[in-house]
């Protein structure tokens, strides 16, 4: 009953989306006033998808095995939280989540948007409805999440044990919120291209959506990276895997968009470029979803491969992105660029930022799809991995990090002040950081060394925009920018230190024997069996010490019965200056155990930096919302008492 209600809600929502799209066309053609109706329709559509997704959560929480999807992906013995998370840990459920967020974001746009030009809003709501319509069709035709089984089976088929992890239960929905949040930027851009009203008002309406989506993408990528780090048991935090790249590409585009939309909002410049980026950012989300869901590229993320679904998603991608690009090609020429700016100005700085981010995006995009094209053209199989990405994207990212320090110091339009003078202290700091790495660690690679240099420069220079301001009266948005930029420096420092100074030991040892890794002496203690709710495990006691104190870590190898799978649960101990990472592997015939150990100095800075970047974004979002609300209130008072 609940499942049927969910399905019915989905059909109704699809019908409303179709209506909303038709209304948009009528309104744009004959100038009828459809804005109010469309706002209500969008809101109801959002509520209906929430009901549908709620129904799916409910059948998963109850483990209703008569629903095929629950049977395939759940099990009565699973912990409750993972039963619920199972709702989106599969293809159909994740697509329902996708369309729910799409419709819900459309509803919020309809309800909250007061700043946009009415006709542009109508066009944007129509575009959002068109987007939603395609994904409703995809769900209802090719991946119905509510299909029943008759008779109902007695037990479900479990869930991939790798997914039974809090990190992974919440990392995909966060990313999805980010991906789909960008759909609003896409729809607003398409709407504005349709009506021709590309101006700073549009940019100000678009900015909170871009910012919000970007914050969630940042958090999602950071969480995904940490999950891969501790769950996959190889001590790495980024693998340049196609699915990771699929989340990185929208982030790069959104980061560029975030900066160019500010130029458009403040100065009315970069119109065509900003519209293009808004289209590209969400297109990258769709490309990412397509790559992940079609299984077209081989990846450690083995999702179900289904050519029919792949074809459907590809068709949607071609229609939406193709339509937006065509619109851009036809209408882009009519856009008049706004206020001019000089070579040395905030605008130029942001253009350089955008160019670098776009080139990095291109590099990642090419690297991800290159194997596909080489095979199509020459039939040769190859894979592109870290050596390419690090060598090409790494230096560009370093240049960008150094420029991040300079950009915020520039004034809009033109700047003739001696900027370089203000950067004396950061420059001295980074020079001494460089000198120190050469003296202390002459053996490290060039990229980590320059990474540390750039991180030191940025970490000092990012605070300069606050100099000469009263910290309490500085707008939150400025604080947000400073903290986000500081987060980049922190993450960069973590990456550089990790790649330069990680120590690892892989060995087979017997109980009581010792190993050493970095400053640590590590002894293998007892290895004992243990069990959880739906797994059994071998747990090792590993005693580690460096001079004084004794730490005990307990890594496990877990065996899940349903489906039969084995996972390594790394034991990680965090210290102020790094993490000790231990994995227990298989026994050998003579009573020894495979043990893998890593000492990773300051590795936590990578994720701390990611969180700081997102926190900075959140401060900016709150600051802007607060200012917007206050100026509206002031205007209200002025009108009342004038």
């Amino acid at each position, binding site marked *: 009953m609940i499942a049927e209600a969910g399905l019915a809600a989905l059909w109704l929502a699809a019908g409303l989306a179709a209506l909303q799209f038709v209304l948009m066309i009528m309104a744009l053609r004959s100038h009828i006033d459809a804005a109010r109706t469309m706002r209500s329709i969008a809101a109801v559509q959002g509520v209906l998808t929430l009901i549908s997704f709620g129904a799916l959560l409910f059948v998963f929480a109850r483990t209703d095995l008569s629903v095929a999807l629950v049977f395939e992906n759940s099990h009565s013995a699973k912990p409750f939280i993972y039963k619920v998370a199972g709702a989106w840990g599969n293809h159909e459920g994740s697509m329902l989540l996708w369309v729910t967020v799409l419709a819900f974001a459309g509803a919020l746009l309809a309800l909250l948007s007061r700043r946009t030009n009415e006709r542009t809003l109508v066009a944007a709501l129509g575009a959002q409805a068109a987007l939603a319509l395609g994904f409703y069709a995809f769900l209802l035709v090719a991946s119905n999440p509510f299909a029943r089984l008759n008779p109902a089976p007695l037990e479900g088929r479990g869930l991939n044990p790798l997914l039974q992890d809090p990190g992974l239960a919440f990392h995909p929905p966060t990313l999805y919120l980010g991906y789909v949040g960008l759909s609003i930027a896409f729809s607003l851009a398409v709407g504005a291209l349709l009506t021709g009203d590309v101006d700073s008002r549009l940019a100000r309406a678009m900015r909170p959506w871009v910012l919000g989506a970007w914050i969630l993408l940042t958090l999602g990528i950071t969480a995904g990276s940490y999950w891969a780090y501790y769950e996959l048991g190889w001590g790495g935090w980024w693998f340049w895997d196609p699915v990771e790249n699929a989340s990185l590409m929208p982030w790069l585009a959104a980061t560029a968009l975030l900066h160019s939309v500010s130029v458009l909002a403040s100065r009315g410049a970069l119109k065509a470029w900003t519209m293009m980026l808004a289209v590209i950012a969400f297109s990258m989300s769709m490309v990412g979803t397509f790559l992940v869901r079609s299984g077209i590229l081989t990846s450690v993320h083995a999702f179900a491969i289904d050519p029919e679904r792949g*074809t459907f998603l*590809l068709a949607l*991608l071609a229609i939406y992105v*193709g339509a937006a690009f065509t619109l*851009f*090609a036809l209408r882009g020429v009519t856009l008049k660029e706004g206020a001019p700016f000089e070579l040395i100005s905030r605008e130029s700085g942001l253009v350089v930022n955008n160019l670098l981010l776009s080139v990095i995006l291109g590099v990642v995009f090419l690297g991800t*799809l290159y194997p596909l094209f080489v095979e199509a053209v020459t039939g040769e*199989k190859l894979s592109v991995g870290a050596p390419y990405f690090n060598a090409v994207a790494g230096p560009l990212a370093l240049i960008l990090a150094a420029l991040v320090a300079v950009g915020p110091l520039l004034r809009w339009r033109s700047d003739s002040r001696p900027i370089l003078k203000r950067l004396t202290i950061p420059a001295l700091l980074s020079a001494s950081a460089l000198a120190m790495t050469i003296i202390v660690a002459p053996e490290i690679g060039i990229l980590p060394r320059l990474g540390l240099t750039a991180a030191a420069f940025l970490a000092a220079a990012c605070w300069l925009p606050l100099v000469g301001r009263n910290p309490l009266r500085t707008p939150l948005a400025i604080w947000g920018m400073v903290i986000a930029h500081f987060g980049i420096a922190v993450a960069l420092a973590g990456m550089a230190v990790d790649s330069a100074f990680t120590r690892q030991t892989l060995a087979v040892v017997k109980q009581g024997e010792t190993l050493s890794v970095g400053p640590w002496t590590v002894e293998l203690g007892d290895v004992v069996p243990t069990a959880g709710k739906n797994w059994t495990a071998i747990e090792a006691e590993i005693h580690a010490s460096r001079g004084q104190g004794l730490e005990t870590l307990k890594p496990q190898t877990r065996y899940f019965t349903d489906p039969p799978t084995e996972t390594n649960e790394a034991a990680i101990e965090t210290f102020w200056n790094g993490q000790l990472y231990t994995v227990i592997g298989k026994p050998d015939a003579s009573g020894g155990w495979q043990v893998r150990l890593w000492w990773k100095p300051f590795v936590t800075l990578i994720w701390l930096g990611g969180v700081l970047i997102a926190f900075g974004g959140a401060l900016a979002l709150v600051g802007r919302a607060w200012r917007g609300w206050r100026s509206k209130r002031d205007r209200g008072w002025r009108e009342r008492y004038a």
Partner: protein
Amino acid sequence: MSRAIRFAPLVLLLLLIAGLIWRLVTPVDTNVPSKLEGKAVPAFALAAGLPTKPGLSSTDLATGKPHIVNIFASWCVPCITEVRVLQQLRSQGVSIDGIAVRDRPADIADFLARNGDPYERIGSDTESKVQISLGSSGVPESFIVDGRGIIRYQHIGPIEAADVPMILGKLEQSK
């Protein structure tokens, strides 16, 4: 900005879509073709795996006649079924040499006594060095080497009865 540039994104998108469609309609072939096919067997000389048979070196393979070089081990279960197919090939006049990977003479003798012995020569590759230089990642694997010592074909996994015509065909081509 000129009009042509504004159409560039659309053109790039169409190229991408074409590539992706090609990928969707061509079935994914997970077999990675051997990089060594068409190349000479890397030089090696292995000691005898059994006291009763000669060992194997790369020069033994360039004798003017095609050979099958079979990588096997007494501890490998699929090799048990494969060895029977190899005997069938042997009875049709095919020269088969073995490389025993990480094995001991007594175990090899035991394995062949129990399952049959198709090999003319057996080299003992105790540390998998030759196996790795041949680009082989597991047991069993087989190489067809032509009379000049050039690798013509790499077969990953056991040769099954159904593969025999294909193997005979490859041997015929290698003459």
